[in-house]
């Protein structure tokens, strides 16, 4: 179980290389990577503000909850902060479990909670110089209800 909140880019391949490997009880590994999208064609960067201290605490609570609900052989959460360019990875989650359903569900649970319960805030920077805070989506709050 590893959690990292960092400004630096992460190396997806290196992170996954040993993840859940070399174990006879791991049948399923799921990864999710979130990347900076530009829907308008007018964006130049995405800025991620967070609440140092609470961020790590909140993610640890979410991971603890996942580990209580599903039997996971391993679990990884990396979330970046600071200024990111279009197409850059923002964060990743990985889960390793005996069966596919647990690995998928735990990864989706982690993502749903990281979206709405970890103290990150996204600000879009436009080519024009304008900035706008990304509004939370009702669908993201609704997504928590299924768990």
């Amino acid at each position, binding site marked *: 179980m590893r959690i990292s909140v960092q400004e630096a880019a992460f190396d997806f391949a290196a992170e996954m290389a040993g993840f859940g490997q070399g174990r006879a009880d791991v049948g399923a590994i799921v990864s999710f990577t*979130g990347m900076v999208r530009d829907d308008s064609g007018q964006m130049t960067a995405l800025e*991620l*503000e*967070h*609440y140092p*201290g*609470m961020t790590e*605490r*909140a993610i640890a609570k979410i991971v603890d909850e996942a580990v209580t609900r599903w039997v996971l052989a391993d679990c990884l959460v990396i*979330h970046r902060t600071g200024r990111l360019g279009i197409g850059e990875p*923002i*964060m990743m989650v990985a889960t390793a479990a005996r069966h596919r359903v647990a690995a998928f569900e735990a990864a989706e649970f982690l*993502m749903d909670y*990281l*979206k*709405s*319960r*970890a*103290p*990150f*805030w*996204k*600000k879009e920077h436009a080519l024009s110089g304008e900035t706008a*805070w*990304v*509004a*939370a989506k009702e669908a993201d*709050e609704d997504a928590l209800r299924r768990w």
Partner: protein
Amino acid sequence: MVDIVYFAWVRERIGLARETLQTDAATVADLIAELCARDPRYAAAFADTSALRVALDQDLSEFDAPLAGVREVAFFPPMTGG
């Protein structure tokens, strides 16, 4: 004495990231009322608390929660991680 921290547009609207306050406020709501009375920038930031979240000592909490023993209060908009 309580530390108050602000994030995202709450921070921008108030114009402060952190301040330390001597307060007798019993609850989060009382603290907000006290801040709003101080300066119109707070009133603007706290105009609609349904658009805000509060954390007490780095745990999500509620606006009617008591402040007794709390060292750090954080105000911010709904989170947009992931």
